[in-house]
C-alpha cells in the first residue's frame, strides 16, 4: 500500500466532560408579596443600583435581602439564609 493511502487511527484531543446531573428549575412563586427575595449583586452598579431601587419600589411588600460584591463570584447565602429565601435575582453576570 502506498504510504499516502495508509489508514491510521487518530486520537481524540478533547478532554473528558464530567457527567452532569441536570436539575429542574426550582418551582416558581405564585406571587412575590410577602416573600423573601435575595438580590445578589456582582458589579455593574450602573445597572444594579437602579435595579435595586426599582424592585423595592415596585414590590414594597417583598422582604428584599441584598449581598454585594464588585467581583465575579457572588457572595453566597448561608445555609440558614437559604432556608428562608424564596427566590434569587443574580446580576450582572460577567
Amino acid at each position: 500500500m502506498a504510504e499516502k493511502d495508509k489508514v491510521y487511527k487518530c486520537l481524540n484531543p478533547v478532554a473528558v466532560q464530567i457527567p452532569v446531573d441536570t436539575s429542574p428549575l426550582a418551582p416558581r412563586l405564585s406571587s412575590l408579596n410577602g416573600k423573601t427575595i435575595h438580590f445578589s449583586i456582582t458589579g455593574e452598579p450602573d445597572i444594579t443600583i437602579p435595579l435595586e431601587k426599582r424592585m423595592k419600589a415596585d414590590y414594597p411588600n417583598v422582604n428584599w435581602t441584598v449581598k454585594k460584591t464588585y467581583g465575579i463570584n457572588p457572595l453566597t447565602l448561608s445555609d440558614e439564609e437559604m432556608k428562608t429565601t424564596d427566590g434569587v435575582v443574580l446580576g450582572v453576570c460577567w
Partner: protein
Amino acid sequence: MLIDLADQVNMVEEWALAQGVPKIRYVHASRTLPGPEDVDNWIEPVFEALTQPLTEEEKGSGKWEPPQNRVLFEGTLDEGQTFYQQTKWIPSPVNAPLCVYTDGLPIIVPTEERVREMLTGTSHKPDELITYQSDGQSQRVERHIGIGEIREKGAAVPFQPSIWRRATVEQVAVNAVMAGCKSEHLPVVLAIAESGCGTSTTGNASQWVCISGPIAKEIGMNSGCGMLNPGSPAGMPIGRVYQLMAINLGGAVPGVTRMGSIGNPFNTGGTCFTENVDALPPGWKGMNEENGFSNEESVVMVMQGSDMLNNPHAPGVYRSLQKSGHGGIARNLDVKGVSGPHNFLEFYARAGLWAWREGSKTLILIPEMAQHLYEIGFKSKEEVYEWLWKRSFEPLGDYRLRGTNDFPTNGWMGIERTSGKHWKELDDDYMVSAGGDSPSDYCIIVGGGEEECSMILMGRRFGSNPIYSIDAWR
C-alpha cells in the same frame, strides 16, 4: 433568575449546563443604555422569571454526558488533516467559522503511533488523570484556581473551570503531537497542563509560559537574542500547545467561553521562553530558586498577562546614559555628564511604568541591564521588587482616577492593605500602591541579546502566574 449581557449568552448557557441548570431563566441588560432606562426595558421579565409557572422543559431533569471516543478519526494522513481542521460556525458575537480542534493552523495528525512515541517522554501512565503534583500553598504565590480557590496535591485539575473537564496524560500527549512537540518536551507540556490552561473570560489576556531550570538547555531553548521570536524548535511548539490544550481540554471558544473582545496576539502560535540563568548577576536567583525550588530543579511559570510594553532604547540612548551620562534618559534623571551605572528604573517610573495600567510588573531584562542594576546596588531581585513596589505609591486621589481599580478594591468597599482601613475612610492624600499588593508580586526574567531594551508585562495578581514542577512529570 439572572441578568447578563446579551453578547455573553453563549457563555451563560455553557456555565448553566455545566452547573446542572441548563434551563435557567435570564434577561439581557444593555452595555450602552443608562441604567434607569435599561432597567425599564426588562424589569417586568425579571418578576415574570420568578413567578411564571415552569414549562415541561424547565421541569425536566437528566444527565448531560457528551460521548467521548478515544479514537476520533480513521483515515489517511491527508484525510486526517482535513478532519482535524474542520470548522464550526460560531454565532454572535463572533459570526465566523472557527476551528474545532486546532488554532487555525495545520497540525501534526495525532496517529496512535505518534502519540505512543510522544508518551515515551514521561513515566506517567497514559490513562492517568492530570492532577496537582504539589500542594498549591507551598509556593511563594498561592496557586489559585479561578479567583480565591486553592487546590491540593492529588486533586484532578479542572480545565477551563467553567466546564469542569478532566484530561488524561494521553490526551495531553495528543495535543502535544498536534502542536509539533517532541517527546522530550512532554514533561514541560504536562506541567503546563497542570495549570488547567485557563484563558480568562472577558479580558484580552495572553498566556505565556516561562521555563526555568536545567531542562531549558536539555531541550534547546533560546534564552539569547530573539528569545521571544519564532525559530526555536522547542519554544514554538510548547507555546503553541498551551493554546491547543486551552481549546481541546478546556473548551476555550471565542464568543462562548473565551470572551476577550479583541483577543491577544501573543496567543497566536503561543509564547514559551526561558531565562538565561548563566547571565544572572551574582546573588540573583533564577525563577526556580525564587519560588522555593533548587537551581537543579526544572519548573514552568504559567503567566496570564495582558499588557506588554516594549522599551527599545535605540539608537544608543541607553548606552549614552550608562557610559557618559548623556542623552534623553540622562537628562531625565539629571545625571548629565556623570558616567553610570544609573538606575534606569527611575526613568521607567517617571515615564509612567504604571501609567497605562496599575498593578505589579514582570520585567524581561537583557543581561547587561540586569548587571547594571546589580552594580547600582541591587544585590538580589527581591531588592529590585521592593524598590519598584515602593516607587509605585501615589496619593489616593490620583489612584482613584485609574481604569481598573474598582475591581481589586471591591468597589471601594474593601480594606486597604497598608492602613487596614476601608478605602472609603482614607483621605485623598493617603499614599497607596499603584504597583500591586506587595513586592513579591513582581518578577524579573533575565534573557535576550545585547541591544539594550526591556519588555514589561503585567505582573502577578489574584494568585496568577503559579509555578509547576516539570520534574514531577518526567
